[in-house]
């Protein structure tokens, strides 16, 4: 199969461009002028005579107008039918549909809030604390937690304006705020021949700013009974929206193991590799098969997950400094290797990490016959993994994985916030030899910077190392 990449000007040397058979620039760095520039992208689709378009997992991957436009060019859309994207993309429409199937949804409103009084009544019914959410999209934008009726008025105004700015849609709704919820999602796959299969769950409770950092499968929190229930519910929801291709049904599971439908993602997820590892199935290949209107290459009975897989997202950010983004040129990378270690990266040495895009640099995935093996492998691999030139989340992931709560598989979406300070303390509590190494490194750098100034004056053929070596011998 021949591949065509599109890229923005700063991404000229990104791996996806270098690996593709053809590549076309779609505009400057700002994503609204390049990766979101539908007209330009459609031009490229026609110019290269593309048979099919894979939208990836960001930007336009859940945009139904784009999916529609692609199909009008005659190219195949590697994704679900436009109608399914539309229904599931509108959070409130999705809630309504799922309620109709009889599946549990987080208690809350199915209509947008109309007035403060309306909000007060509903909030009283479902009980505080409550969560205010935007109907138009996710990512934490327009989201607020409210603990009492007094806070309601102020917060609704803020949430509306934030939602309007982010999604050009100021509709907001209420949801019950759950106790120590787990974010657990089910990977589903459907073809155009009536087959719908569940590929098991992913536990995604380690999050920052409502974005996932570490995912694993199977979840250490749920048992086989709940696992089966979640899968069945996910299949039911998938069937109800006439789906095809890869999809993910996200659930919240509270500490009493009650589960609720959260949302459906009508695309491949960033964390899909862990599902691939335990099932031995290439999900992207399967997406292409389904788009070619072939049957799924597996049946539900054939899905027997084996072992345990963990993914760490490697972001360009400093986890110990409020996840501040880091930019710069990558000067060196040493990738981890070995049995059960997989690296999916989107960067290379010499590449500049700019402020324009999501800070995801790559994903490190490990597999083991059980959780302990996968976890030990991940810690080993993270320690081997070196990236110079920018800050990355590697040290932060290392600290999280070595913390008791992760080691014992006893964590919820609230855990990271709760242990943040402990992690910072742990990172300061490093070995004495690291302290010496840092001091020595600094002295070398300092000494070298002084020397460069001296050597520029004379054209001395002896380099500084020979001179100082001789001085040592004289001592």
């Amino acid at each position, binding site marked *: 199969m021949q591949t065509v990449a599109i890229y923005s000007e700063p991404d000229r040397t990104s791996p996806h461009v270098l690996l593709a058979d053809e590549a076309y620039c779609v505009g400057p760095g700002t994503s609204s002028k390049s990766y979101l520039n539908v007209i330009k992208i459609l031009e490229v689709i026609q110019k290269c005579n593309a048979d099919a378009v894979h939208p990836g997992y960001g930007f336009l991957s859940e945009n139904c107008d784009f999916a529609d436009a692609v199909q009008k060019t005659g190219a195949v859309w590697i994704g679900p039918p436009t109608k399914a994207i539309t229904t599931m993309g509108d959070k409130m429409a999705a809630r309504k549909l799922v309620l109709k199937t009889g599946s549990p949804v987080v208690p809350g409103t199915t209509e947008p809030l109309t007035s403060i009084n309306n909000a007060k009544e509903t909030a009283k019914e479902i009980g505080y604390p409550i969560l205010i959410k935007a109907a138009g999209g996710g990512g934490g934008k327009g989201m607020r937690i409210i603990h009492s009726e007094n806070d309601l008025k102020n917060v609704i105004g803020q949430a509306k304006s934030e939602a309007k700015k982010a999604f050009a849609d100021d509709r907001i709704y209420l949801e019950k705020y759950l106790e120590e919820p787990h974010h657990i999602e089910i990977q589903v796959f459907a073809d155009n021949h009536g087959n719908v299969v569940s590929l098991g769950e992913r536990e995604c409770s380690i999050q920052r700013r409502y974005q996932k950092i570490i995912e694993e499968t199977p979840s250490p929190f749920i048992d086989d009974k709940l696992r089966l229930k979640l899968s069945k519910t996910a299949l039911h929801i998938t069937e109800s929206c006439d789906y095809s291709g890869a999809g993910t049904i996200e659930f919240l599971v509270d500490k009493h193991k009650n589960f609720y439908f959260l949302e459906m993602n009508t695309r491949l997820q960033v964390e899909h590799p862990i599902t691939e590892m335990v099932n031995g199935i290439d999900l992207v290949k399967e997406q292409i098969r389904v788009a070619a209107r072939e049957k799924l290459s597996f049946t539900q009975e054939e899905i027997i997950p084996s072992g345990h897989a963990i993914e760490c997202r490697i972001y360009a950010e400093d986890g110990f400094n409020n996840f501040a*983004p880091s930019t710069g040129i990558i000067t060196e990378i040493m990738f981890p290797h070995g049995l059960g270690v997989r690296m999916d990266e989107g960067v290379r040495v010499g590449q500049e990490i700019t402020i324009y895009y999501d800070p995801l640099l790559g994903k490190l995935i490990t597999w083991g016959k059980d959780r302990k093996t996968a976890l030990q492998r991940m810690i080993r691999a993270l*320690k081997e993994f070196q990236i110079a*030139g920018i800050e990355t989340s590697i040290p932060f992931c290392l600290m999280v994985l070595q913390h008791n709560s992760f080691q014992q598989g006893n964590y919820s979406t609230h855990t990271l916030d709760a242990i943040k300070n402990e992690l910072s303390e742990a990172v300061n509590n490093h070995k004495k030899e690291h302290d*010496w*190494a840092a001091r020595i*490194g600094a*002295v*070398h750098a*300092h000494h070298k910077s002084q020397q460069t100034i001296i050597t520029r004056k004379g054209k001395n053929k002896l380099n500084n190392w020979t001179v*100082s070596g001789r001085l040592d011998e004289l001592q």
Partner: protein
Amino acid sequence: MKFNTIIDGQSVEMEFSYSLNLLSIKPEKEMQIDLVQLGVDSYSLILDGKSHHLTINKQPEKYEITVDHYTHLVQVQDEMDILLEKFGMQSNTSSHAGEIHAQIPGLVSQLFVRPGDNVDIGQKLLILEAMKMENEIDSPIAGIVNDIHIKSGDKVEKGELIMDINN
């Protein structure tokens, strides 16, 4: 050669051989140093047989050193600096609190103040947008905005001076 190194306020006096491959620590300890450059800012250090991966970045007045994923900020004083300090002189002047530097690289998406404005502690000064996140920069002091070195829509680098506030 003598150097003082400071990490988190902890100052350590270090005596090196001329080629910097031997470190003597009082009273009678010696450490063998083998430091080899791998790339622009990355190094391999074998210290008394223990292997470490270092990245070294120069920052204003200090060095940011990452050792096996642990980052340290190290200040280095050579013999001249130590001497100057003894006489109560400092070779470097530090910046004052009213200098607003960009803590992260980003795009100035909104600017809320103008030169001459009075600002309070914690007042919103600007929004820096980076990697799809909005980051609010607040005033660390109360005072009057003196100079603004950037305008809305500008791209700023980490550490760049954004504005001066006088108190």
